[in-house]
């Protein structure tokens, strides 16, 4: 029998997540379509941040939702659906990174100096809402460039903790890291980004305090 399955635009925008998951498990493709639509942009952003490659990110996006659909019965329901698909997406993205790893090391497991020297070179105050000096587009560009310049071990932790807003435990779990490792990488990532953004966000007239 030929089954045509469409993923129609649903009227389920307000339906809560656990209902959608339960409906999807029973084969309701409209409900599953709504779950996809809810999280596709975030998963694509996450995949782009981790893989740094648009083509790989698109593969990760498709593989994530296909795997989620396939393994929906394994979703326990004791975590959030979003956390569950983030874990799938991180795994897929890391696999891409490892596969692409040739001369340039992109391993997440690489030894990084444990960092007694938390880098603080520039101490200049920022405006109260420094981001308002920029258009949305400019700001997006500044923030993306700064994240992209982080080394992969720091970048992945920062993306999961501070952009996707996972907890420390969830981040540790998704990346296969210990909690202290997540914490120390997060601190370094935050400080490095602070340093990079200071160039754009520091209060005008405070140049006397800039040492760089």
């Amino acid at each position, binding site marked *: 029998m030929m089954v045509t399955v469409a993923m129609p635009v649903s009227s389920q925008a307000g339906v809560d997540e656990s209902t959608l998951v339960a409906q999807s498990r029973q084969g309701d493709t409209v409900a599953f379509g709504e779950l996809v639509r809810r999280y596709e942009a975030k998963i694509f952003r996450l995949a782009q941040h981790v893989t740094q490659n648009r083509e790989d990110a698109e593969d990760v996006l498709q593989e994530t939702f296909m795997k989620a*659909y396939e393994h929906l019965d394994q979703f326990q329901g004791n975590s959030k659906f979003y956390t569950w698909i983030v874990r799938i997406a991180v795994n897929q993205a890391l696999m891409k990174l490892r596969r692409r790893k040739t001369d340039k090391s992109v391993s997440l497991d690489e030894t990084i100096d444990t960092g007694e020297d938390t880098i603080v070179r520039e101490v200049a105050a920022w405006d109260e809402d420094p981001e308002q000096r920029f258009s949305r587009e400019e*700001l997006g560009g500044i923030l993306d460039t700064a994240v992209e310049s982080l080394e992969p071990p720091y970048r992945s932790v920062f993306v999961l903790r501070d952009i996707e807003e996972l907890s420390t435990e969830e981040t540790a779990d998704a990346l296969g890291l210990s909690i202290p490792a997540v914490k120390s990488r997060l601190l370094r990532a*935050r400080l490095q980004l602070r340093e990079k953004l200071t160039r754009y966000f520091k209060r005008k007239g405070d140049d006397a305090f800039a040492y760089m």
Partner: protein
Amino acid sequence: MLTCKDFLKELSDYLDETVDKEVLAKLERHITECPNCWVIADTTRKTIRVYKGMDPHPLPSDVESRLMRALEKKIAAGKSGQTT
């Protein structure tokens, strides 16, 4: 007495508000006395805030339509009893 180095070590937990009361009191005392650490804490807090406030761009329409096509294929294959 807390040094700047001690303060920096606790900075993430301080900003995430996951330090206990005793440590918190020490950290807060330190930043009232150390302008540099105050600036670092303030600018790091703002760094986190600007990233949290960024919504993802909507999925580009070509990426979205390829995603939907892939899923429809997957679902159809599942329904007719095939595995991939």
